[in-house]
Each structure stands twice: as structure tokens, then as C-alpha cells.
């Protein structure tokens, strides 16, 4: 399972106290900046600063250690490939870019509750509510994050089941049950959203948008209301 999912802890470090928009903006700016940074010393400085920032959020040490080791492993693999091609400078550049961005992302996710991120996303998308269902997209993101550990678990269990049957070398024996179970989980999740009235909220949100654009004339308003009533009845 991804060790960093749900790693948020309510602390009072500077990163925790900073507003979510600032943290996301910082992440976006540094990510873009890293594309242009070619100098090795600057890259290493950025990576070290990001790691220090991540550690300043006081993540659980076991989680932090796992996350750091995995990130270094991936960075080493990326750098190793470039080294093998004889482009060691590019390798170091890629590795420091990766380390900087991942450590900064870890710092942001460890110090920001998901609800704040969703509020931020909803707020950013709110001006575009005529075209984009902003709350739905926020919910979609949280569902996406929620699904990752579930899918990892489903894949692990499918692999174990295949091993138990002695067919662990067959990708089909792992992927087919995993896909079926994932779809089943998604169906259950959909039902749960409906049961908790969260899917109703999405519909309300659409109606709110329609309400804000109600035409001025009484006749046109009545026509729109009756259209909404018909839509509700159809639901």
C-alpha cells in the first residue's frame, strides 16, 4: 500500500499552518522551476531543501523512511539509465528534479488535510461552474485517491489467490479477477455515495447553477421550474 496516503496528522508546524493555496502554488512553481534548473549544485540544493521541508512536517518516521527510500530508489534508477547512456549530468538533473518534486509533494500532502485540498479545488473551479461541476470534480479526486490503496490491496489478493492455485505466472489469472473485483468495488462505492446522499448533492449543485441563471421573466421562470420538476420526476 502507498505509505503516504492518509498520512496527514494535525500538527502545528509551519507547513501545517500555511494555507493550502500557498502550498499548492509553491509546489506548482517549484515543479515548473525545476524544468529550467540545469545546474547540478542548484538541483541538489533544491532537493535537500524539499527533503528538509518534508521532514519539518514531522511525518511518522516509518512512513517517512519508506517514502524517502522509494523515492531515492526511483531517482537512482532514472539517473542510472542516463549514466548507462553516458549522460551523467542529465542523470543527476533528472534525479534531483524527481527528488525535489516528490519530497515537496509529500510535504504538502502530509501537512494538508484532504478536505482543505477539496475546498481549494472547488474554489478554484467555482468561476467555471457553468461548464465544470466543481464539487463533483473535487469528489472525483478524493475518490481517485481513495481507490489507490483499495486497488493495490485487490491486486495483492488476486496475486496471492493465483499463487495459491499455482498459476502465478499467468497475468490473466491475476488481472481478470482484479479487474472484476475493482469494478465490483466501484459499483459498491457508487451505491454507497447514493445511500449517503452525496450523489444527490451533485444533482443539487447542478440545480444551483441553473437557479443562478434563472431568466428574469415570470413565464420563463415557470417554464424552467416545470422542466426541473420533470427532471426530478424522471429521476
Amino acid at each position, binding site marked *: *500500500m502507498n505509505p503516504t*496516503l*492518509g*498520512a*496527514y*496528522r*494535525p500538527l502545528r508546524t509551519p507547513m501545517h499552518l500555511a494555507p493550502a493555496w500557498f502550498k499548492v502554488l509553491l509546489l506548482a512553481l517549484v515543479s515548473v522551476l525545476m524544468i529550467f534548473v540545469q545546474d547540478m549544485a542548484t538541483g541538489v540544493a533544491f532537493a535537500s531543501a524539499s527533503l528538509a521541508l518534508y521532514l519539518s512536517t514531522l511525518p511518522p518516521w516509518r512512513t517517512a523512511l519508506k517514502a524517502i527510500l522509494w523515492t531515492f530508489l526511483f531517482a537512482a534508477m532514472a539517473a542510472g539509465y542516463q549514466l548507462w547512456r553516458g549522460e551523467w549530468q542529465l542523470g543527476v538533473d533528472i534525479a534531483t528534479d524527481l527528488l525535489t518534486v516528490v519530497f515537496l509533494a509529500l510535504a504538502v500532502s502530509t501537512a494538508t*488535510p*484532504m*478536505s482543505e485540498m477539496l*475546498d481549494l479545488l472547488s474554489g478554484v473551479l467555482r468561476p467555471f461552474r457553468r461548464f465544470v461541476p466543481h464539487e463533483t470534480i473535487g*469528489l472525483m479526486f*478524493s*475518490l481517485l*485517491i*481513495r481507490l489507490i*490503496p*483499495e486497488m493495490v490491496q485487490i491486486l495483492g489478493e488476486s496475486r496471492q489467490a493465483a499463487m495459491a492455485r499455482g498459476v502465478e505466472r499467468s497475468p490473466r489469472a491475476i488481472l481478470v479477477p482484479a479487474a472484476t473485483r475493482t469494478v465490483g*468495488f466501484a459499483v*459498491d*462505492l457508487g*451505491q*454507497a*455515495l*447514493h*445511500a*449517503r*446522499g*452525496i450523489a*444527490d*448533492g451533485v*444533482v*443539487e449543485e447542478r440545480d444551483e447553477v441553473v437557479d443562478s441563471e434563472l431568466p428574469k421573466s415570470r413565464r420563463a421562470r415557470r417554464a424552467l421550474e416545470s422542466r426541473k420538476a420533470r427532471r426530478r*420526476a424522471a*429521476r
Partner: protein
Amino acid sequence: MIVFEDAAVVAPDSGVTILEPTTLTLSERHISVIGANGSGKSTLARLINGLVMPTEGTVTVEGKTTRKHGREVRRMVGFLFTDPSAQLIMPTAAEDVMLSLRRTVKGKDARMRAALEALESLGLADRADVAVSALSGGQRQLLALAGVLAVAPKIIVADEPTTLLDLKWRGHVGALLRSLPVQLIEVTHDLDSAMRAERTLVIDSGKVVFDGAPGDAVQFYRDLIFGRPEQTQRV
């Protein structure tokens, strides 16, 4: 009060009858529903909060039909699933309860307070910031219940809420559900729990074949399963 009037469910594609026309009035505080796998118990339960719509007849909750007033009915009827994992959407416990409160409690701080109160009432206060994926099965079911109770439903429909739990958690969750000041419709394979209800329905092949006192219902169910030919429909 929940009223089924000739409510039937037929699968739209295959035409298979999942629940035969059923007429019932459920007014007791604790009603249990028992029956074999695939007998139609879950369909009956899902009809109550509009997760499944009757293809014939109506289901009315507190005077509101599920077809016309689905949203209002779902606000009155909380639903607890067998697998709580599918019911939990946000990464941490407090955030998940806050999601339930998104439509009813305005302001992030107020939502957080209400969520913490809901968690505290079920003994989960110290788990508020723990990742959902790190909770035990019993704690997840309690968290799902906290999410349901946070919006103060009048009725709780629990679809085999203790099936995946160990003996300790089964007893704890079962006792907690029975102690709630709401009407409880409990679909269960746990005959001891079914016996604690005021009224029990036995479902077999999409039909309510027994409706009465829990002791008699459980005896009827045992006879049905172990094949006493003299047993006939007793509704």
C-alpha cells in the same frame, strides 16, 4: 413508518423476479430480515432508501414515496453496508464524517466539531486523523456508522453489518446498533442478533414467507433450510 404496497422488483434485462409483490407495514423499532443468500433480502433493504426502485407498486417512508421523494427519503434513512470499505470515501476518519455533513452543516470548523462529536460518540475520537486504510474492520464499520449517524437519520437499514467482523466486533457493533434511538431494519445471517428484534421477516426466493415473532421466524427458517416438506408459506 415504512410501507410496502405491492412492491416488486423485476430485473430489467432478464425479466427475472427478484422480489415478488410485497405488502408490508414496518413500524416496530427493531426488525430483522433473514434468509438464504440470493433470496432477495438486500433488494428488500435497498428498496427502503431508494437504492433500488420497485418496478411495480410503491415503497413509502414516513409518507414519502421513494420514487418521487428519493432525496428526502435518503436523508431520513441511513444505510449501512456489509463491507464498510466501499462506504468510506475520504482518506481519514474525520474527513469522511465531514463529507456526510457537507450539505447539512455550514462552515468547516462547525463540520469538524460535529464530525469529532460523531466519532467520540462511537469511541473513535482517537482515530479521527488516522487513515481509513489503517483501521481494523470493526473500526471501519463503526466509522461507516458514524458517517450515517452524523446526519441524524430516523431509520437505519443495516445490510449484514456484522458479517465481515470477528466475534468481539460483531457483539460490539450489534449492541451499538440496537441501542440507537432510531428504527433499525437489520438484514442478517446472525440468528442470535435476529432473535433480539421485535419482529422478523423470512425471505425465500424473492418472497416474504414468514412475518412474525423472532423465535418462530428463526425456527421457520431453520425448517426451511433443512428441508421440512410440511412447512408452507405462513404470512
